[in-house]
């Protein structure tokens, strides 16, 4: 930690050279005219490039306690201007956290409370979703379309389907012959591959079903009075009536109604 503070101290000294010096007379003139309504800048806060680093008290602590991330329902009641400001607050916080994490890794020190990065990330994802919701509502009302990036399912050269995200072009599609070459496949060439691929998927599903059926059989053996509704909900493919009659499903105990 001493190393870290020493390195940061060097950075701070370099910064100090760039700050123009104020002589005593101007300082005295400025002080009485300070507006009481404007809060004085907090002394523990960094300025300039040092904003990329956490406050100095947090460098040596084992843990930095912070609250939870912003939820969507809380962001929905905020104006666009508030969301705009909050986005930059979160962005600066994320930059600070990633810088601190990098610096700590460089110095072989543990980074305190790494879940802060996740909390900020979650807030940013929620905020973006709320903004997109508002834009979608506007475009649906005005144009009848969502205004989002369009996409569709396409076939690639190997004959596999994938979701294609469209991009913006200056040339219309009918004049862009080169672009169309990337879609579609020769069905005859990929037929063998598709056959084996589909067979593999089908066999995988079949094996999974058989595996589940055998597992349900052993469950019946161990818990003869289990909740069948819950069992069917967990294994929807398995025919319970059929499995129940199997020999492997009968437990090693005396029947109750003997």
């Amino acid at each position, binding site marked *: 930690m001493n190393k870290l503070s020493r390195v940061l101290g060097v950075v701070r000294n370099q910064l100090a050279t760039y700050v123009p010096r104020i002589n005593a007379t101007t300082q005295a003139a400025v002080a009485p005219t300070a507006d009481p309504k404007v809060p004085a800048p907090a002394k523990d806060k960094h300025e300039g490039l040092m904003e990329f680093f956490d406050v100095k008290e947090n460098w040596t602590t084992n843990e*930095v*306690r*912070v*609250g*939870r991330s912003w939820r969507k329902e*809380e962001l*929905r*009641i*905020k*104006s*666009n*201007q*508030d*969301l*705009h400001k909050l986005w930059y607050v979160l962005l600066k*916080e994320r930059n600070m956290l990633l810088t601190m994490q990098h610096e700590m890794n460089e110095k072989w020190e543990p980074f305190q409370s790494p879940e802060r990065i996740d909390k900020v990330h979650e807030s940013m994802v929620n905020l973006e979703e709320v*903004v997109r919701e*508002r*834009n979608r509502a*506007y*475009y649906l*009302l*005005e144009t009848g379309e969502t*205004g989002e*990036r*369009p996409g569709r399912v396409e076939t690639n050269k190997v004959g596999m389907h994938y979701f294609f995200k*469209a*991009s*913006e*072009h*200056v*040339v*219309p*599609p009918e004049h862009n012959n080169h*672009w169309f070459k990337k879609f579609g496949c020769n069905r005859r060439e990929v037929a063998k591959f598709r056959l084996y691929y589909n067979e593999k998927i089908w066999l995988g599903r079949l094996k999974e079903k058989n595996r589940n059926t055998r*597992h349900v059989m*052993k*469950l019946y053996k*161990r*818990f003869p009075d*289990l*909740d069948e*509704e*819950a*069992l069917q*909900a*967990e294994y929807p493919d398995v025919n319970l009536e059929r499995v129940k009659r199997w020999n492997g499903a009968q437990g090693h105990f005396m029947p109750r109604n003997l």
Partner: protein
Amino acid sequence: MKCCSKPKLCSHKLSFYPQVFLEPIKEWSYFVGDRVEILSGPDKGKQGIVSEVIEERNWVLVEGLNTKLKVLGRTKQFYGSVVSVEQPLLINREVALVDPADMLSTKVEWRYTEDGEKVRVSHRTGRIIPVPNQARTTHDYKSKTTYKESPKDTTDSEISKITFSPTLSTFEMDIMKSEGIEETRIPNKTYWY
């Protein structure tokens, strides 16, 4: 010794990873701090407090009950120290919740109150069994009321302020208007494909 990290890759040594049979359960109703009665084993009939919950195995650990003696730190010179370790108990089969009305074990059911709150109700007496506060503790706080605000937290009064007023504009249009940015250029036609 493990021959590889994934059991799929070494089918000949699958016996190291025994198959686990979990009874499917509709809704979990055992929490840390609950008073439960033990239904089987050496401590059958005794009541205790749940100290740990292992949902992956349908297990519950009860404080100081259903224990096994274990010798720790045994060497040639030292006999070791004996500690009692709590053994896991299967929920619904080896353990049952205790009704606070008569302090006897019951089955429970999840129901809704008239206020729309989801509660555990005893099957026998119909009395609500409240979920203990201990189960609501998180890494950040023991209980919500005792949470200490840190300097970077947004206060509750600030969060609950409603500043949104719907206007017929997108987010970008609204921000441009408030920042005083005017866009008069007309973009060329583009194609999305």
